[in-house]
């Protein structure tokens, strides 16, 4: 304290705990007079402990700091003023009194004068006679007064001059004066008493210190009153930032822990140092400041304070310490931070939203553009295929050489455009096909029934695509890889304009027949070949086909598909699905690898990664030089992947490239191979034989070389023209007209070869070989139509023929609603189909029990029994061969010869198509899960219905565009292929 004192003295310090303006005469710091509100304060209880004061310091401060002294001086002044007032009042009183006294004395003098005069006139003899001596004696002690008394006496004497002379009169007069004197004395007495009293009171009144401390106390009380619950800390720290005073409502430390210490000495933790630094800064700069601090101390945890610090100056203008006031604002800060965070989150959200919207917008745009592209391609394709096919038909008519040339240019250009458009369409289909793959997988897990249905699909000639309208169609048909290779090479050779050798080499272990989507595989091959040809200027383009081990490591070396789920778990291609779901397989899977090798310009290593990207080519100049859309490889890759395989490339610049794809193929059971046919054979080999089928090497040379094709087996080269001539002679009927179109040319060539291989056997027999004929009437796919075109052309309308070959398909409509029934019926009639109608699921089951239908259109929501249940019952029958489940469900089969039904093996799977108003996917899933094959959304439109029928090979005979020939039992049936012109 001593030290402090010294310092304080030096600086002449002092902070006050009062508001600064207290010296503005109590205006800011108005304290009511004790009397008035003493009660109030008494009611309030104070806890005064919070204040911890270094009183000595306070005293010093009050003594030395400007504020303190001014405050004190104000109080003193105030007191002085009050005292002065009292003194003034007293003085006035005294003045009054003395004035009166003077007056009295004056009067007395007058009286005395008179008296003297009387005395002079009457002599002084009466003087000695004193009647009322004792009266005089009473006032003996106050001589002055005696004078006074004397004077009135005399005066009275004067007044009654004329009546004098008598003693009585004088006596009377004396007595009267005496009385007056008495009264006067009495008054004086009272005044004296009052004066005494006043003096006494004055003495009794409090000393300035007392009053001051009282005021201070009251102010203090009020401060406590106001501050008692405020979350504030008020303090004063000296120059060294040691606490000299602190007020804290919630004290956690005792006085001795705080006073004389600095923040850092008291608290430990985050923020302490900073706040102290801040105080120091204020101290040094001499400017008050406010700042927030977040403390993280052991003492009171994490709290945020808003701290106001102001410097305190000594009278000399030096800083001698700081006053600080802190308010806890933890909650506010927390709230504020929360708000800020929220605001930030909102901003982020908004930004994200905009971003998303943008993305959505872009995606939509892209989708629209794609859709547009697809639609346009589609729209272009339909008329274009009309043009091309008509041109082809035209080419079969009699034309002269020039015309033929023109026509061939027309055809090849048309084909090119068609190819381009197909590419674009395929791409968009494959892309949407991607979407469907997880969907498939989903089903595999969920419903084994679906798997079965899938399997059956593949067993029966329903393209799997019927499940997914609008997505890539993958079909599973038997085909002969050798023939595919051959055909692809032929096609390439036909349009070959370079001196290249095209070679096909199929290893012996490649099965004669496999199952797969031959159209797609052909497409891939064609693409790769044309690519290879395009970039190769001399040398060879080669296809090598051979069987490899299953690329899946955990597989058995010769993967049998019996226990499927494990065989190909990672893959999810449709083919795999198919295999996996096969209940009892008599087929194996082979992985066939196909290398397409060229000796062309090669691909720089840097370009390889982007090779399979859409619209990308190895380099910009490549595109300029070689043309092309840059779509081919992308499509190939996607197709291969869709089928569960992989496509890779290896290349050496200037030496050539090899594109390799590996695909799983199912191998059909050997005994089935001969009696079932597929369109490929149908279109390629009108006269193939077993010998030919197993031949594995093909070589094609450009037409200009004169020799187009040589089969390794016979090692003979055939002169094209000669063959053609003989061929024409041989079958010179009207069935195949002479043509220079490349396809015809190839076909003939092929036939030729085969015949050669038969050692020139009976060509007629070969041509009409019944074993290779195909009798599937339903051909709706564009590609197939294309292939049908290849098999020869005859222009005869044989619409009615169909009735001969098969009965009209029977269609069952299950629909409870009259209006819908009427509309559907009418539409069917428009499509030239009849159908039976039943009104609910139970009736549908009965109808199916009675009669074999080729197609069931099933409403989903129906009274009595809904479509889903009905479908389940029908599927159960197909699976088990009995109607037990239906019986359980309350649908008794009509009395049918029970054995008859059960003996029918295998039961045909009826395509059941859901008609649903909710086109939502979950509804679709439900349909599939219950065994339905596809669905049409309601309201049904003519086009939907037609597409659906077409998909299920129930051809509405409405438009006849293409004509094809089918062979059946050695007889030629001409048949109309209904290929409806796609409506707009």
């Amino acid at each position, binding site marked *: 304290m001593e030290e402090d004192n010294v310092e304080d003295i030096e600086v002449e310090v002092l902070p006050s705990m009062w508001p600064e303006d207290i010296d503005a005469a109590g205006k800011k710091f108005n304290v009511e007079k004790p009397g008035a509100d003493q009660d109030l304060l008494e009611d309030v209880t104070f806890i005064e402990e919070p204040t911890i004061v270094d009183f000595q310091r306070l005293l010093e401060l009050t003594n030395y700091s400007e504020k303190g002294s001014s405050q004190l001086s104000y109080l003193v002044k105030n007191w002085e003023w009050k005292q002065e007032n009292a003194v003034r009042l007293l003085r006035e009183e005294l003045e009054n009194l003395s004035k009166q006294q003077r007056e009295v004395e004056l009067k007395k003098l007058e009286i005395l004068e008179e008296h003297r005069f009387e005395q002079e006139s009457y002599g002084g003899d009466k003087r000695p006679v004193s009647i009322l001596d004792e009266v005089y004696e009473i006032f003996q002690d106050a001589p002055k007064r005696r004078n006074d008394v004397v004077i009135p006496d005399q005066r009275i004497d004067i007044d009654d001059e004329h009546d004098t002379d008598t003693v009585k009169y004088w006596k009377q007069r004396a007595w009267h004066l005496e009385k007056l004197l008495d009264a006067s004395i009495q008054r004086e007495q009272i005044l004296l008493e009052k004066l005494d009293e006043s003096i006494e009171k004055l003495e009794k009144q409090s000393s300035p210190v007392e009053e001051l401390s009282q005021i201070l106390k009251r102010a203090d009380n009020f401060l406590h009153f106001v501050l008692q619950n405020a979350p504030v800390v008020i303090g004063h720290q000296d120059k060294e930032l040691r606490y000299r005073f602190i007020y804290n409502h919630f004290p956690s430390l005792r006085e001795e822990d705080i006073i004389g210490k600095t923040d850092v000495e008291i608290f430990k933790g985050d923020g302490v140092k900073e706040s102290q630094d801040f105080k120091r800064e204020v101290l040094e700069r001499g400017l008050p400041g406010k700042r927030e601090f977040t403390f993280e101390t052991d003492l009171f945890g994490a709290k945020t304070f808003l701290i106001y610090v102001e410097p305190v100056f000594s009278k000399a203008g030096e800083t001698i310490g700081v006053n600080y006031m802190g308010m806890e604002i933890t909650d506010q800060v927390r709230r504020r931070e929360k708000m800020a965070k929220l605001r930030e989150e909102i901003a982020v959200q908004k930004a994200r939203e905009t971003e998303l919207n943008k993305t959505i917008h872009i995606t939509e745009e892209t989708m629209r553009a794609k859709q547009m592209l697809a639609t346009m391609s589609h729209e272009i394709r339909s008329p274009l295929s009309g043009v091309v096919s008509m041109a082809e038909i035209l080419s079969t008519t009699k034309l002269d050489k020039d015309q033929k040339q023109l026509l061939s240019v027309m055809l090849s250009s048309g084909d090119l455009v068609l190819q381009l458009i197909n590419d674009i369409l395929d791409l968009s289909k494959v892309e949407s096909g991607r979407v469907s793959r997880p969907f498939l997988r989903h089903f595999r897990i969920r419903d084994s029934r679906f798997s079965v249905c899938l399997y059956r699909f593949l067993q029966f000639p329903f393209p799997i695509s019927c499940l997914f309208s609008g997505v890539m169609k993958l079909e599973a048909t038997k085909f002969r890889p050798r023939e595919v290779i051959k055909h692809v090479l032929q096609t390439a050779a036909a349009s070959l304009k370079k001196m290249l050798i095209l070679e096909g080499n199929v290893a012996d272990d490649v099965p004669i027949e496999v199952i797969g989507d031959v159209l797609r595989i052909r497409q891939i091959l064609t693409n790769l070949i044309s690519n290879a040809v395009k970039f190769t200027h001399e040398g060879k383009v080669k296809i090598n086909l051979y069987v490899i081990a299953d690329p899946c490591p955990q597989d058995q070396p010769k993967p049998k598909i019996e226990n499927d789920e494990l065989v190909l778990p990672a893959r999810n291609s449709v083919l795999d699905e198919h295999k996996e779901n096969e209940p009892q397989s008599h087929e194996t899977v082979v992985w066939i690898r196909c290398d397409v090798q060229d000796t062309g310009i090669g691909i720089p290593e840097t370009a390889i990664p982007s090779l399979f990207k859409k619209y990308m080519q190895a380099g910009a100049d490549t595109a300029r030089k070689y043309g092309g859309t840059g779509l081919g490889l992308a499509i190939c890759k996607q197709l291969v992947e869709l089928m569960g395989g992989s496509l890779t490339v290896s290349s050496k610049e200037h030496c050539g490239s090899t594109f390799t794809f590996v695909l799983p193929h199912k191998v059909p059971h050997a005994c089935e191979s001969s009696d079932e046919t597929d369109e490929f054979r149908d279109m390629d080999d009108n006269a193939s034989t077993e010998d030919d089928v197993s031949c594995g090497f093909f070589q094609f040379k450009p037409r200009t070389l004169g020799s187009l094709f040589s089969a390794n087996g016979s090692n003979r080269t055939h002169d094209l023209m000669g063959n053609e001539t003989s061929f024409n002679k041989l079958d010179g009927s009207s069935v195949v007209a002479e043509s220079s179109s490349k396809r015809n040319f190839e076909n003939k060539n092929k036939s030729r070869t085969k015949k050669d291989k038969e050692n020139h056997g009976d060509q007629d027999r070969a041509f009409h070989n019944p074993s290779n004929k195909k009798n599937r009437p339903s051909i709706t796919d564009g590609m197939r139509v294309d292939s049908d075109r290849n098999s020869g052309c005859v222009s005869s309308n044989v619409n009615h023929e169909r009735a001969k070959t098969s009965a009209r398909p029977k269609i069952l409509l299950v629909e409870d609603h009259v*209006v*819908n029934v009427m*509309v559907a019926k*009418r539409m069917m009639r428009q499509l030239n189909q009849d159908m039976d109608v039943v009104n609910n699921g139970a009736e549908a089951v009965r109808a199916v029990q009675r009669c074999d239908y080729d197609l069931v259109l099933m409403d989903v929501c129906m009274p009595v029994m809904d479509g889903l249940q009905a479908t389940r019952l029908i599927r159960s029958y197909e699976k088990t061969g009995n109607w037990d489940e239906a019986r359980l469900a309350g649908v008794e089969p009509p009395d049918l010869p029970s054995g008859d039904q059960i003996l029918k093996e295998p039961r045909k799977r009826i395509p059941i198509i859901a008609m649903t*108003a909710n086109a939502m996917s979950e509804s679709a899933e439900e349909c599939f899960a219950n065994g339905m094959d596809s669905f049409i959304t*309601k*309201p049904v*439109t*003519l086009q939907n219905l037609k597409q659906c029928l077409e998909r299920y090979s129930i051809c509405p005979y409405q438009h006849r565009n293409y004509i094809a020939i089918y062979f059946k039992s050695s007889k030629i049936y001409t048949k109309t292929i209904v290929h409806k012109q796609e409506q707009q």
Partner: protein
Amino acid sequence: MDTVPQLQRQFVEYTTSLYREGYLDDQFSQLQKLQDESNPDFVVEVVSLFFEDSEKLLNNLTAALHQENIDYKQVDAHVHQFKGSSSSIGAQRVKNVCVVFRNYCEEKNLDGCMVCLQQAKNEYILVRNKLEALFNLEQQILQAGGSVPMMV
């Protein structure tokens, strides 16, 4: 007199307005396409069937919604039917009301259902009047010896 062209124009305008104002949608044109010489009255037949059916359904619905304990499943089934038939003939606005109606059924919201029922009735009557007017116009054209213009 130009009555036939005039009527025809009127017919076209009227039909267009029906599509424009959303009373009908494409499905109705589907019906019209299904009509040909062999079935000259197909549209009228279907639509009459729809009228009959709708009135029955609306009555059923009204009755069902005035039950003490409302069987919402039943109501929903009716609405479903109504939706199906209206969408089959292309009465778009009726169909739209039915969609909302079904949502209320699902929520078992009686007030909503009642409102929807009223709306469905209104829309049904509206579309009925419109269609009847259209058929009248058709009749007039035919009687005047003209042919009904095909809407594209």
